[in-house]
């Protein structure tokens, strides 16, 4: 594992993403949801909405770094709002 140059921060990041994927998986088995059309006029499942949230969050954080620099706490808040909006309306 040494060659992978792990840090606890990146490990935490991946554990969180993994846990999100697992809980989304469990959620979709317990309460299956049909795909729906939202404001983007595309059909999305909860998995699609998670993907859009994660990809969008990555870009929000990168743009924040480009414009204001670190730390990213406020950017993370924007990401949470963005993800909530995606799950509600997309």
């Amino acid at each position: 594992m040494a060659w992978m140059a792990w840090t606890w921060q990146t490990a935490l990041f991946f554990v969180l993403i993994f846990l999100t994927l697992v809980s989304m998986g469990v959620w979709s088995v317990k309460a299956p949801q049909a795909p729906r059309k939202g404001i983007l006029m595309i059909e999305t499942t909860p998995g699609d909405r998670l993907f859009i949230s994660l990809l969008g969050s990555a870009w929000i954080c990168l743009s924040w770094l480009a414009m204001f620099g670190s730390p990213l706490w406020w950017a993370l808040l924007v990401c949470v709002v963005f993800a909530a909006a995606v799950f509600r309306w997309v």
Partner: protein
Amino acid sequence: MNKTWNNKAWWMVLPVVLLVAFSAVIPLMTVVNYAVQDTFGNNQFFWAGLSWFEEIMNSERFINALGRQFMFSGIILAIEIPLGIFIAMNMPKKGWGVPVCLVLMSLPLLIPWNVVGTIWQIFGRVDIGLLGASMAALGIDYNYTQNIVDAWLTIIVMDVWHWTSLVALLCYAGLQSIPEAYYQAAKIDGASNWAIFRYIQLPKMAGVLLIAVLLRFMDSFMIYTEPFVVTGGGPGTATTFLSIDLVNMAIGQFDLGPAAAFSLIYFLIILLVSWIFYTVMTNMDKEG
């Protein structure tokens, strides 16, 4: 009827999951780890936080390479897609011309990238290349190693030469699948050639055309070998595209931290564009 739900088939996916984890996910995780650290070799790493991302997002070098990359992809798409459609529409529909055309069109696609680069590198040379020497004989000042416009022209013409056939062949396949009855109906209605193209051929080609655009965009966006062999990224940095710059940073300068951040941003751009293409394509399929 009550079906018994059995999810055991999911185990069949396991080999693919393992393979993708081994070949893509674990290396990608390693890149993420590298992107937040600095190293001077010896497998010793120092925490750098998000500073590499900040540096790359604000670096003129990255932004310029990204701009050149989008410009290159934009230009070759703007040439190859209309040209490919035009060629496909003028290819013979039956008879002996069909196999001849298909073989001739596939030839450039069979040549490996570095060979294409070498061919054009020599072809364009003023001293021994046919193109370069002919230009010199005509009195045209052409030198792709020193003139930025010449370098760009050479690389663009090379890419058009190498890949337009792919677009043409895909469009040809799309055109061949249109039943003759559509054309007969258009003839009865007295439709013009433009109307036939706009309302019959183009809609029927839309599916393959999107695949062609996606393939050409992806390929041109990660192009490395051909411009590297022809111009080496020069003159200066005029043809240094993202992948060339990334290799310089990672292998030339051994700046693993910034290079890792660079590749993640590169990856996110490709992921975003691919997702947009994929979404547009699948939604068009559902509607059409």
